[in-house]
């Protein structure tokens, strides 16, 4: 909402309150000022807490002037030469403004045209460039005629984008007066909160200032309204559903005219962001901006023509299959939820949203019928969500308007139409008020206020605040009773109504004046969050290993996830959480696969670095049959490709990572989480390279799958030669099986003995089983087993491999002897031979 200060001042005396202070007062009362536009006036001094923009009208350079004669430019048809009096004498000013042409050749004008005049050297906006580009007015010669100064358009002065013609000021503008003194202004752009829609009006904003400053509000006065009367002869009214249309009023002006409104009206509308149209439409828009009640104007003669006699206005919901052509020319298919204003012939407008094209105001309009109505805001919202129409009227009606405003607005609007358009107000109004609004009454005590705010505010002060906001207040015993004003519908009753009142009191009192305390209530039962703690532990371990933490989008598409499969063919029947209104075809569902996300991250980053090692911890979304919400399963994904070591200037790049680099990372993680009984088992998986994929298990529980990406899956991404390694783990299982507490092994102070042993076994013997057996055979004196070589050679025999281990023996109570070592070694050799047919390889 844009509020010109000059307009606000119609309703409240703001003498002595600065531009910046007004902005801060509005923000502090809940009307956040987003920007302050300076229209000609100087920027305030001091430390400013608001965003200012605009054009300064130098008092010497911009003045009110009058054009006394308009002549043709000798060498250009499209230019005129205006004889202009700026209070210091007559100058000739050149202009191409079309609105000067009608005065051509009229000689000395009886009624001079008042204009906004800029002298040489003035800084103003360039009218011929888009946007607001400041330019300095310099002497030029146009087609042989010298030009030093100009008559300004609204665009050049920063009032609006209008540059079709120059401004014609109202006749009473004093010639020679600095323009800024005549019509300089300040426009506050205010963000209207949903519960303060009543303040989407100049009067609403003035009322807030009145409350916070403690200055009285001057209410505008319209014409006196009488129910019934002559108007009843002209038009009929029928409201079919008072739930949807609680109130409907009609007033009428005869013999009026659709000419321009006075310039001050046009300027105010422009500054408030509405385009001036003509006196009749401007009167409805002006009244809406003034008090927040939208109005609609009909050309009465068109209604009469349609009806073939006295028209009857009927408000009703649409019939199945009914259509309407709107003001903007679009045709709309209606349905029975949509409330309409109709006549006996058909729809005239979508109630409270937008008028139809057939019966609106036109240049020929002489008799004007004005609708001032109230509509059920929920139903308006349903209409809006269906029709996707935006209008100033719909904006206000969809936030609920008090029905009493219909009456105020009609009275004001009739007065304006008569003043600006001329004509006579037809005696009487029609008023169907089938559902009178009952204003709430609430009672609060000083204790109620202190209990919520933690701050004492006296009932006297509270009363003052509420009364200035329009509440009617009185005391009953120790309680303040407040009847809500007939302008707002947001104050409920009961405990919520009390809260509403406390909020009103607090915001006007000033939030910054409320005390600051530390919580002093009893702490709740202490509940930890082991899941989160374990997640953070996983994150720390991964980072300590050297992997980069990432954060993934939840939204993806099935096509993107299908890239995990050979030929991009996803398995049939994958259930997704699907979005009804995706923002892009790239993000239509919630992701199911953390691997897919990780591969995209690797793909995206592979071009930037020779080696990548990433991880991500986050949920996937798995629909569950019979459940309304999906299972949000925590996943840990790991992705690695290229060299592990970062390149340096004197060492060659280390080789590309392979399966065992990934496995090393996984082992380090599982070790860090103190998981026990972990097994890696070779498996086949459609996304992974055959023979280079493992499942990670603890007992029967599968923790995850890891391996090298299948070459044909890799083709689905823009990867180079290097193997791509990826793993996806069940984060919940990791969290559940991790041990924050574990048994620390003691360290012996006796020396250890180290020896190497190489065992030749069949290829089919899994390394982990052989190692497990070594541990078992070694007994408690065997404290470390390290595989350091795997060797294959024809001399070992077909299908054989040699595994070389470094074994460490150590006791806690003595120094071991060679004999101890021999015993252990013999046990290992014997048992591995018995179980796996292992042969000790001669040194």
């Amino acid at each position, binding site marked *: 909402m844009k509020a010109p200060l000059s307009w606000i001042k119609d309703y409240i005396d703001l003498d002595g309150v600065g531009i910046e202070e007004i902005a801060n007062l509005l923000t502090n009362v809940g009307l956040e000022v987003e920007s302050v536009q300076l229209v000609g006036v100087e920027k305030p001094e001091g430390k400013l*807490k608001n965003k200012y923009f605009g054009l300064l009208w130098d008092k010497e350079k911009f003045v009110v002037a009058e054009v006394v004669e308009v002549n043709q430019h000798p060498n250009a048809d499209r230019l005129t030469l205006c004889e202009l009096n700026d209070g210091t004498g007559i100058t000739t000013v050149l202009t191409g403004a079309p609105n000067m042409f009608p005065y051509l050749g009229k000689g000395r004008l009886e009624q001079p045209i008042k204009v906004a005049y800029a002298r040489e050297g003035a800084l103003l906006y360039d009218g011929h460039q888009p946007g607001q580009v400041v330019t300095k007015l310099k002497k030029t010669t146009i087609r042989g005629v010298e030009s030093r100064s100009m008559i300004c358009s609204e665009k050049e002065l920063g009032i609006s984008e209008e540059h079709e013609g120059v401004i014609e000021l109202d006749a009473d503008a004093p010639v020679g007066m600095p323009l800024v003194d005549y019509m300089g202004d300040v426009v506050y752009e205010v963000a209207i*909160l*949903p519960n303060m829609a009543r303040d989407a009006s100049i009067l609403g904003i003035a009322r807030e200032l009145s409350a916070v400053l403690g200055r009285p509000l001057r209410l505008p006065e319209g014409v006196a309204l009488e129910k019934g009367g002559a108007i009843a002869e002209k038009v009929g009214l029928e409201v079919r559903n008072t739930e949807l249309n609680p109130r409907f009023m009609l007033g009428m002006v005869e013999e009026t005219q659709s000419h321009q409104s006075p310039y001050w009206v046009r300027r105010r509308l422009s500054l408030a962001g509405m385009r001036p149209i003509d006196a009749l439409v401007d009167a409805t828009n002006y009244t809406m901006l003034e008090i927040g009640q939208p109005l609609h104007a009909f050309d009465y003669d068109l209604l009469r023509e349609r009806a073939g006699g006295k028209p009857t206005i009927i408000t009703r919901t649409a019939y199945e299959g009914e259509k309407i052509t709107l003001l903007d020319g679009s045709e709309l298919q209606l349905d029975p939820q949509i409330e309409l204003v109709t006549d006996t012939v058909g729809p005239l407008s979508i109630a409270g949203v937008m008028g139809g094209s057939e019966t609106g105001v036109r240049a020929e309009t002489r008799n004007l019928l004005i609708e001032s109505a109230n509509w059920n805001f929920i139903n308006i919202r349903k209409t809006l969500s269906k029709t996707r129409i935006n209008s100033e009227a719909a904006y206000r009606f969809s936030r609920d308007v008090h029905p009493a405003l219909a009456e105020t607005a009609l009275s004001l609007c009739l007065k304006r139409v008569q003043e600006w358009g001329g004509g006579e107000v037809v005696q009487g109004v029609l008023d169907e008020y089938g559902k009178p609004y009952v204003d709430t009454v609430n009672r609060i005590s000083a204790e109620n206020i202190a209990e*919520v705010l933690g701050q004492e505010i006296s009932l006297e002060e509270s009363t003052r605040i509420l009364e200035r906001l329009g509440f009617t207040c009185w005391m009953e015993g120790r309680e303040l009773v407040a009847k809500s004003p007939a302008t707002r519908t947001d104050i409920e009753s009961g405990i919520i109504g009390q809260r509403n009142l406390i909020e009103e009191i607090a915001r006007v009192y000033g939030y910054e004046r409320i005390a600051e305390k530390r919580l002093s209530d009893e702490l709740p039962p202490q509940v930890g969050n082991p899941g989160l703690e374990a997640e953070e532990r996983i*994150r720390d371990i991964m980072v300590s290993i050297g992997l980069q933490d990432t954060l993934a989008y939840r939204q993806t598409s099935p096509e993107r996830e299908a890239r995990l499969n050979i030929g991009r063919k996803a398995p049939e029947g994958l259930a997704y959480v699907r979005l*009804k209104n995706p*923002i892009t075809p790239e993000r239509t569902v919630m992701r199911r696969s953390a691997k897919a996300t990780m591969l995209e991250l690797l793909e995206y980053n592979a071009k930037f670095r020779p080696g990548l090692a990433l991880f991500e911890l986050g949920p996937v979304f798995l629909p569950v049959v019979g459940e309304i*919400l999906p299972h949000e399963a925590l996943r840990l994904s790991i992705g690695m490709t290229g060299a592990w070591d970062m390149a340096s*200037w004197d060492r060659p790049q280390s080789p590309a990572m392979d399966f065992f680099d990934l496995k090393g990372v996984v082992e380090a993680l599982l070790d860090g989480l103190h998981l026990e009984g972990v097994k890696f088992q070779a498996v086949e998986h459609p996304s992974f390279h055959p023979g280079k994929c493992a499942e990670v298990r603890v007992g029967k529980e599968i923790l995850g799958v890891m391996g090298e990406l299948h070459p044909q899956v890799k083709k689905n991404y823009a990867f180079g030669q290097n193997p791509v390694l990826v793993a996806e783990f069940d984060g919940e299982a990791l969290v559940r099986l991790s041990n924050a507490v574990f048994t620390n092994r003691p360290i012996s102070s006796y020396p250890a003995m180290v020896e190497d042993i190489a065992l030749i076994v069949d290829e089919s013997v899994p390394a982990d089983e052989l190692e497990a057996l070594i541990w078992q055979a070694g007994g408690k004196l065997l404290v470390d087993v390290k595989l350091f070589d795997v060797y294959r050679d024809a001399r070992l025999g077909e299908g054989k491999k040699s595994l070389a281990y470094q074994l460490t023996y150590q006791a806690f109570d003595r120094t071991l002897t060679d004999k101890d070592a021999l015993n252990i070694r013999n046990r290992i050799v014997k048992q591995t031979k018995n179980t796996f047919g292992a042969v000790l390889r001669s040194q």
Partner: protein
Amino acid sequence: MLEIEEKLQAELARGIEALQTVADAESLEAWKQEFLGKKSLVMQVYGSMGKLAKEERPIIGKAVNQAKAGLEATLAEKEEAIKAASQQEAFTKETLDVTLPGRKPRRGRIHPLHLTLRQIYRIFGDMGFQIYRSPEVETDDYNFTFLNMPPYHPARDMWDTFYTDKEGVVLRTHTSPGQVRVMRERAPENIRVILPGTTMRYEQLTARSEIEFIQVELLVVGKGITFADMRGTLNDFARRTFGENARTRLRPSFFPFTEPSAEMDVECFVCDGEGCGVCKGTGWLEILGCGMVHPTVLRYGGYDPAVYSGFAAGMGIDRSTLMRYHIDDIRHFRNNDIRFLEQF
């Protein structure tokens, strides 16, 4: 003095002098051969000792010993000097350009948003807040209705919502649904929790607006909780986050699930409140929305609003992280460009 004595003295003098010109290991070796080798005068004198007259032996023996000791001592000195010189030469050869870059180990980093989250966990943890998480895909009831926004409520416009193809299921637009979930789980105990998590809004993806972002919500429920408690708690948070001299302002706002509602601004830490691009010239940065829990929400959570009260606050951490590190584009957080992440 015997002739031989004089010869030895001369030999010593000659040796010392000759050694002065010796500068490397090779000439040193030649010198050793000449003065202390088998054919040297000193060694020849030793070799001929047996043939000497008995009375000459001690005299000559002493003389030869002196000469040998003298030569050896000088040699040792020289050797030491040559060793030092050659080591110095080696050092010079090995001298590094210490300004060359070091070999970088692979360093993992925590994602910047997770860093911010951890900081918030710590600050509120110190104040006795526990962490509670709730689903990202939510029911319309929890996301709206239980938060005092029945269907078609105007406040629903405040959030551009992603709907799913399942009726009544949305992507949560804020972490506030967690308020009712934690209340229902814990009623009638006191509550002091933070609710962190990803939220999603239907917005155009630009440098300043995201469809997914992380919020942290705050909820306190108990007996006698007031607006003043809220102000104190949030100011404490602001001071812990932005420094002990951080200035804040609380101004009225609207959220359907709180009443009274407020928004908290902190004085811009980039320009110290003077006005700059980050604060759009206002000197203030909006950091959170807050308010006293609405009686309707307390009721939905299982608390009697006549007995219990509470406050809630919510903040978007993407935006505050942007400001903290002067990041130019909010999309960096989820694009995970390694060149961006490596800077943390």
